């Protein structure tokens, strides 16, 4: 169902750079970096007579070193291992391991993340309404953790302290969460261990998609988890992003085709800030709050979400070119939550 992302060619990269003059300059300026080779203030002032054109990070994050790539996270929907139960129901099983992992959330800025399967956000679980889901969760960290799914399920599968053995999975322990996929829509999962703010903002969250029994129309689909990182642990975010790496989709615009249906599964897990938002430039999208209805609630170019809120966006880009998307909160955007679509 999901389309594979076109491999980025050298030509497309050059084109991208040319398209955003500022970005080309960014790459050039951050390449040298050595203060001895750095341009003098006067040279800089000549080079940027109007100052920097966009906010942006110096350099790039090495996806290989991080162990996950925001480009891949857009589309790596994980349907699990599929078997059929007696009676014909589909059973999907996943193995999830919680691990501590040092990741880069902005170029050169590392963050000791707590991860599901070594990535932030965790795997994007995908099932069809009515499937039986079985998630075998092992805690390989030094703290107790849980997996708390949004959805409809019995209380002993809720993954909160006091709900039974799944409510506090001790270091080294394993617990299997099992429940039905319902209702259809876009949901999320996250750790629900005290202190909650720490366990969530450290990276223990992910998207959870339940497709309706009659699938939605074919589309170019992608997942965006809006998150942030409190790198100095002062109770406020220093870095904002979609899919973890600040400014990633500015450096690597998301490539889509003119007039094709683009479907974005948008989840907000941002800790510490009350509200996050999504704004798309020069285009309007249909918005399906929580994805629980097949009828859109709104045609708009800006929506807001509190923590845990999510929704599905559907858009067709009538024009080729580069279209920015970002939090319509300037601070979040300029601290990393900004990206580009490249429409061809």
């Amino acid at each position, binding site marked *: 169902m999901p389309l594979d992302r076109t491999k980025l060619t050298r030509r497309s990269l050059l084109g991208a750079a040319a398209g955003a003059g500022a970005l080309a300059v960014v790459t050039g300026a951050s390449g040298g970096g050595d203060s001895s080779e750095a341009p003098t203030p006067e040279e800089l002032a000549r080079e940027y007579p109007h100052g920097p054109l966009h906010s942006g990070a*110096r350099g790039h994050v090495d996806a290989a070193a991080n162990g996950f790539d925001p480009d891949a996270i857009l589309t790596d929907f994980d349907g699990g291992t599929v078997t059929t139960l007696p009676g014909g129901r589909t059973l999907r099983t996943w193995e999830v391991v919680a691990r501590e992992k040092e990741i880069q959330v902005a170029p050169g800025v590392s963050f000791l993340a707590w991860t599901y399967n070594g990535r932030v956000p965790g795997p994007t679980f995908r099932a069809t309404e009515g499937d039986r889901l079985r998630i075998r969760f092992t805690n390989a960290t030094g703290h107790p953790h849980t997996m708390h799914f949004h959805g409809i399920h019995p209380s002993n599968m809720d993954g909160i302290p006091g709900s039974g053995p799944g409510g506090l999975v001790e270091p080294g322990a394993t617990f299997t969460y099992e429940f039905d996929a319902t209702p259809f829509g876009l949901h999320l999962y996250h750790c629900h261990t005290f202190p909650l703010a720490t366990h969530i903002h450290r990276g223990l969250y992910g998207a959870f998609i339940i497709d309706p029994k009659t699938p939605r129309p074919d589309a170019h689909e992608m997942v965006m988890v809006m998150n942030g990182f409190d790198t100095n642990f002062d109770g406020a975010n220093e870095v904002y992003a979609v899919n973890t790496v600040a400014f990633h989709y500015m450096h690597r615009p998301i490539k889509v085709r003119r007039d094709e249906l683009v479907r974005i599964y948008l989840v907000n897990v941002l800790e510490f800030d009350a509200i996050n938002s999504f704004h798309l430039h020069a285009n309007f999208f249909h918005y399906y709050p929580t994805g629980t209805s097949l009828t859109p609630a709104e045609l708009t170019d800006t929506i807001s979400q509190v923590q845990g809120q999510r929704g599905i966006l559907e858009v067709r880009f009538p024009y080729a070119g580069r279209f920015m998307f970002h939090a319509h909160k300037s601070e979040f955007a300029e*601290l990393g939550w900004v990206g580009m679509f490249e429409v061809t």
Partner: protein
Amino acid sequence: VTTEAKQAHRAPGWILAAIPISLLAILALLLLAFDLPGLDRNGPPIEDVAVERTELRPGVIELRVRNDGPDAVRLAQVVVNDAFIAEASLPTEPIGRLGQATVRIPYLWNEGEAYEISLLTSTGVTVAHSIEAAAETPKADAGFFGLLGLLGLYVGLIPVMMGMLWLPFARRAREPVVRFLLAVTVGLLAFLAVEAVVEGIDQAGQGAQSFGGASLVFLGALLAYVAMTGVDGWLRRRRAGADGWRVALLVAIGIGLHNLGEGLAIGGAYAAGALALGAFLVIGFAVHNTTEGLAIVAPVARERPRLRSLVLLGVIAGLPVVPGAWIGGLASNPQVTALLLGVGAGAIVQVVQQILPALRPSGERRGLEPAIATGLACGLLLMWGTGLLVG
């Protein structure tokens, strides 16, 4: 065996003195060579970076930073007013302990606006630095030297010289009046020392703390006190001139050292755009420092110093503001300013100690006369009151 033979077998004194030092050196070498266990600090790296100097030019903000913590720090990103700046240039190598580095940020800053700069280190620690009101950093050209030089003359040399014009009055005055003037002088100087220590501690709090922070003020003060005591002893041995002249020279040196530190502070504030230059400030400083002139001439009221000597005293006391302001405007850092303010305070304390005996009528051994105590209080209040003009 005779005593002489015993002494011949004894090791020379310097070898005995060298034994503990040698053992200490061997111990240090062993610790370093074998990296003995248990000496490593536990826990995550401690990252502490101080911003020592801020320069603003059109379209550019430049910070001079110093690693003020025990571990090397790698700067990764620059954020100005909640926006990442990709074009900022940072050192590619980590900054070592006490190392310095320059951060250049292209940014269209606006005059008078506040900026919050945050340097993000590789571990996600933030180094916060506030620019309270942006103003262009003066360039080190002829105009800069001229302006600060002129300011130094207004604030230092001219008022001190004017204050010295109290000499004819002091000379004509009767002996109790001269002692009263000396008491006023002591009060003035004592409060000057207090001010210097307070400002020095304030300065020391602004920069890197690894060099000792506020203890630099007291280091400077103690060194100056010792040095001034040495100068005093040297002058006494040379019996250069009369006793009053010697005290006046010491007072001039003490005030000169103080004014050097004051000049640094003025220059630094000017470079940072924090000094509102204006007639009021100059008048305030002038009134404030005129009283310093009185302190110099009071000890020589009963003598007949030559005009040339008096001018020399005035120059020693008042001129150091000029080089102080230049250095402060160009390359001040808070630690040096704090140290020099301490030096001024220590020198003044030594001078006060010199003058104190002259406050009593000769041969008198009892406590201070009420008039002298009043003089001391007047001096303290006068220096405090004129200080208000400077703000």
